[in-house]
């Protein structure tokens, strides 16, 4: 990824509403052809960010540089970028074909060429050509997604922005569309910049992910880096269920006050004083004896949940509730309130600062 030239460079990009910085000094390079996803909870500034990049919201300060050219003052209709909106914003008074052809019509492309392009896009997006004359109001949720994407592709943008277009779609269809979108990205080779509040969704599709919090990008990395080496507690918890133990360094040892004991760390970062020890639930193991893992704790089974291919166990140890996940085939049969020994090896844990 890093060998490819940057298509979009953000320098100290800031958007203020009064004294509040919705986007706060973001620096970022996005490579040509990359699928980059910005994830963050609602209110983290991700929507404001993408609206600035698309030209729908003026930046307060900083630079947006597209292929070496500062485009802060270029309005949205003159930028070679295009957005798929959360509401999709399909024109309700027009047919599927007319929606897809809209950017071509604006550009003055003759009707025959427009239609040819629209039909090609319908094929590319696995929609029947007969949909050309169909009212968009009569399309299903998934079909509307594809029409919106086809319309954006008809514009032939250098960068495609996506503002949580899948958030209103049911789980099963969403999973299908996520994969389709990744396929389309591969086929077109265009740069995709996607925003979502779901890190899981980001993981499926992205080359790189930027995690946003309170207007700042707190971590940028590949899905694997974000998953296995979260920079802080916020990022680690954003991925869903995770075990977090507050720890501090005392006398060269990693001490947990709540358990009144020390844990073996995965290696101490320079200057570490206090933070959290993070262990993913699938790295937690049930032990026969405390010697089977570098760190162990005893607790009782509080409850268990079947999560499709996996079983999740909630284990109470002291004031903490630990989460352990096992593949269904490898899941032990446990009774409620049964005493269990759980543990993990230091290499499977991550030490993050506050």
């Amino acid at each position, binding site marked *: 990824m890093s060998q490819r030239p940057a298509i979009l460079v953000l320098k100290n990009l800031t958007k203020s509403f009064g004294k509040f910085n919705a986007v706060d000094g973001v620096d970022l390079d996005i490579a040509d052809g990359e699928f980059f996803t910005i994830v963050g909870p609602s209110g983290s500034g991700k929507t404001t960010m993408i609206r600035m990049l698309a030209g*729908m919201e003026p930046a307060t300060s900083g630079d947006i540089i597209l292929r070496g050219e500062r485009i802060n003052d270029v309005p*949205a*209709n003159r930028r070679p*970028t295009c957005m798929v909106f959360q509401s999709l914003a399909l024109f309700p*008074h027009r047919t599927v074909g007319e929606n897809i052809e809209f950017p071509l019509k604006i550009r003055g492309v003759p009707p025959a060429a427009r239609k040819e392009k629209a039909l090609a896009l319908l094929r590319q997006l696995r929609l029947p050509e007969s949909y050309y*004359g169909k*009212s968009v109001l009569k399309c299903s949720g998934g079909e509307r997604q594809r029409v919106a994407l086809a319309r*954006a592709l008809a514009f032939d943008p250098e960068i495609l922005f996506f503002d949580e277009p899948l958030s209103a779609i049911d789980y099963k269809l969403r999973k299908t569309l996520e994969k389709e979108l990744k396929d389309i990205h591969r086929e077109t080779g265009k740069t995709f910049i996607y925003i979502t509040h779901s890190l899981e969704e980001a993981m499926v599709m992205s080359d790189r992910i930027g995690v946003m919090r309170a207007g700042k990008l707190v971590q940028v990395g590949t899905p694997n880096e974000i998953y296995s080496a979260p920079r802080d507690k916020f990022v680690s918890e954003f991925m869903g269920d995770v075990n977090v133990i507050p720890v501090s360094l005392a006398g060269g040892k990693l001490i947990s006050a709540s358990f009144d004991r020390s844990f073996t760390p995965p290696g101490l970062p320079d200057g570490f004083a206090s933070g959290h020890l993070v262990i993913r639930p699938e790295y937690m193991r049930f032990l026969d004896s405390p010697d089977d893992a570098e760190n162990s704790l005893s607790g009782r089974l509080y409850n268990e949940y079947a999560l499709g291919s996996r079983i999740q166990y909630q284990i109470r140890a002291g004031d903490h509730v630990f989460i352990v996940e096992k593949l269904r085939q490898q899941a032990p049969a446990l009774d409620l309130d049964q005493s269990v020994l759980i543990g993990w090896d230091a290499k499977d844990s991550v030490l993050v600062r506050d």
Partner: protein
Amino acid sequence: MEGMSRSGRHALIWAWTIAVLVFLYIPGLCIFLASLTASRYFQFPIQRWGLDWWRKTFDSIEVHQLFKTSISIALAVMVIAVVIAFFGALAFARYNWKGRSIYQKLVLLPIFFPQSVLGLALLLWFNAIGLELSWKTAVFAHLVWIIPVVTLVISIQVYSFDPALEEAAFDLGATRWQVLREVTLPVLLPGIVSGSLFAFLLSWGNFPLSLFTTGADTTIPEYLYAKMVAGYTPGVPVLGTVSTLGAALLLLGGYWLIAMRRRQKNSREGS
């Protein structure tokens, strides 16, 4: 409820519905019947039936002039009111701006003024600035009362308008003008059509504002009133009937237009 059978309740609902309909439409029917008399006077039951007064009314040059005046006012009001109210409705319901909530209240206030007071106030004002009263001043007077109504009617459509549609069109390369022509206007068209109908019909039937502001010109409602006060002929119910039928026809026309549009859309889907 216990004591009444299902069919009994059903019959009661029907009876009530019909009673309401009779109550609403009998007066209109009476006007029509009153126009069918051959006699000179207003008399029920009608002694001798005839269409004489219909012929006489349609032959009258005075009546032609009345229609011309009323239609001129209503058409001018419709066009001006819709243009102003369209942009007014965008400010009312589409954009968030600092004075919006005060604007929303101020713009609707004229609807609640007693129209005769509003008419008098406008008359005084026209006199003060030295405007000669004619059908043109009546247009202005009607606008004061009708623009708020049309703004409200179009606003209802604007409220259900997704602003992202405009952003999407702009983002896809359209100029502001193209966005308006290709997206905003067509999507809001049903609201604009019903706003136009409201504007025309409210002006067409308006009496109190016209009374004060038409000067030497006379509209149909003014004429009807004047004739009722002095010089009644069965030409009055004739004109009343025609005026009502005209309004009904316009409404049906509007309905037909919307139905045609819908059918056109459906047939396009079939292709």
